[in-house]
């Protein structure tokens, strides 16, 4: 699925990779780019609307901001797997290299969500977190599905 939101900010999209799929989020802040990329991750799975019925909180640490991005996505993938949930809204705060994230969603319903795939993990391939000349932050990597 292509670009879903109005540019310049914030927004998300996916991009092609050999066997899997790349996701990219962007926004006015680093946090916003992480939140948008999380929406792109959900977009890889389903086109359906997701009700924000339950919230889950996670925390991550990493040696640099790019690894922190992978940790954040892997935290979402883990919560999806063990709670059998799918998430449609995300809030991120980052202090230094410590991330606190909240995600809202509902139990997976195969009829309603018809998930196209099940993510195995976020990878370091095509991993990039950067601020552009216009101040826009973007965060991207490949998801192994």
């Amino acid at each position, binding site marked *: 699925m292509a670009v879903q939101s109005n540019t310049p900010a914030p927004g998300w999209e996916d991009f092609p990779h050999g066997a899997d799929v790349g996701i990219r989020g962007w926004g006015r802040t680093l946090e916003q780019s992480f939140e948008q990329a999380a929406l792109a991750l959900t977009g890889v799975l389903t086109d359906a609307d997701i009700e924000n019925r339950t919230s889950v909180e996670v925390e991550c640490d990493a040696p640099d901001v790019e690894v922190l991005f992978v940790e954040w996505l892997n935290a979402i993938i883990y919560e999806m797997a063990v709670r059998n949930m799918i998430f449609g809204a995300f809030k991120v705060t980052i202090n230094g290299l410590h991330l606190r994230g909240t995600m809202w969603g509902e139990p997976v319903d195969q009829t309603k969500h018809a998930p*196209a795939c*099940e993510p195995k*993990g976020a990878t370091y391939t095509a991993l990039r977190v950067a601020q552009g000349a216009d101040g826009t932050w973007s965060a991207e990597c490949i998801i192994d599905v």
Partner: protein
Amino acid sequence: MDLSRFTRIDPTTWQIEPTGAMRVPGIIYADENLIRDMDEKVYEQTANVAMLPGVVKAVYVMPDAHWGYGFPIGGVAAFDADEGGVISAGGVGFDVSCGVRTMLTGLKVADINPVQKELADSLYQQVPVGLGSKGAIVLDPQEMDAMLTGGARWAISRGWGETRDLDRIEEHGQMAGADPSCVSDRAKERQRREMGTLGSGNHYLEVQAVTEIFDQEAAGAYGLKPDDVVVTIHCGSRGLGHQIGTEYLREMLPAAAAAGIALPDRELACAPINSEVGQRYLGAMRAATNCALANREIIGHYARKIFGHFFPKAELALLFDVSHNTCKVEAHKTDDASKPIYVHRKGATRAFGPGHPDLPKALRKVGQPVLIGGSMGTGSYVLAGAAGSEDLSFASACHGAGRAMSRHTALRAWSGRQIIKDLADRGILIRSPSVRGVAEEAPGAYKDVGAVVMAAEEAGLAKRVARLRPLVCIKG
């Protein structure tokens, strides 16, 4: 790919000469069309793997190769622990011990035809597939550890499988050296309710018909005749393997730096085999291998139950169970043949040739079955490991068709509903929770599996034995 960058050894052997930091050459097996169509990233990743410490002889790449994670998918590389050799989580893959098993039903296509739809519905209802599906089996901590050390043997001891299967599974159904204490609680939690589930992506359960025999002797030994019906299952170590891959990849980043290994790509994160992290990963990876072996054994058991309902006399004997995301300690013809090496196969199948002592007696004369998954529409192949594969590729061959097109592009090119209808018109029934998932796995998104196996045969890695076409495909 730019062919001028290779030394062409013969029509299907393309060598990347060792330059710069490369310690050994890279060798890609493919015909001219396949290699021309391969992503440039395959070249880059092959060269990168050839730079890792302790790499032995050459890095080999199979005809179905494509851009992977650190290693190319379709990559084979071996490392010598005594020469600073490494173990790489990316070289095994996120889905540890993902693999294929094929079972012989003893039935003919004419037996299936009258109940094809009911059989498809029954398999789809009873084998959990896709995100959001959970199995009927829930493991407590003791059972989790028993599964992680016991593999298919554990599944059989709990009533999900048959003892006679063990000879037909790599490692006789149980990977030695598994250490559940090296597997995190998070990885175990992710697996607690996932035993006996198929997963999604390119994983499937298919009912297939034998359409063509290429090698009568091998087909005879394998029990394959024209029009026979078989069941093939493609899946791996589910959430447990994925979590282990994720966690150890992260842990190997500083481990590689601490060992003074300059990584050309972060995804190549690895640790010396003779290091604390390396040994822990081996213990965890082998436990995940057992998880995959147990999982395929359980799904095979479900298939037996369902077939037993429709065909009370059908036994579903296991032809073979192979893994194509592995690292195994093996002896090969190297400078010191007595010294075991750590062979990574990422999207590559072990392919022991005729006479190999590890093969069960009934298969030894013709070589190991190599099970090649194609796409939903084009079918699959059964190959036999060739004698020459030992010298050519540490006894390895291809594993599938390999994608030719991204999911993104496939989704734009095809409608899942139309594919399901077109295949149904051709007698192939698809059952999947997601029409979008079907579009992403469209037959046209894959390479020509026929060209891939032909190249493997011409290169001398494996011989074609039989071609299979799908009758029913359960897709996650």
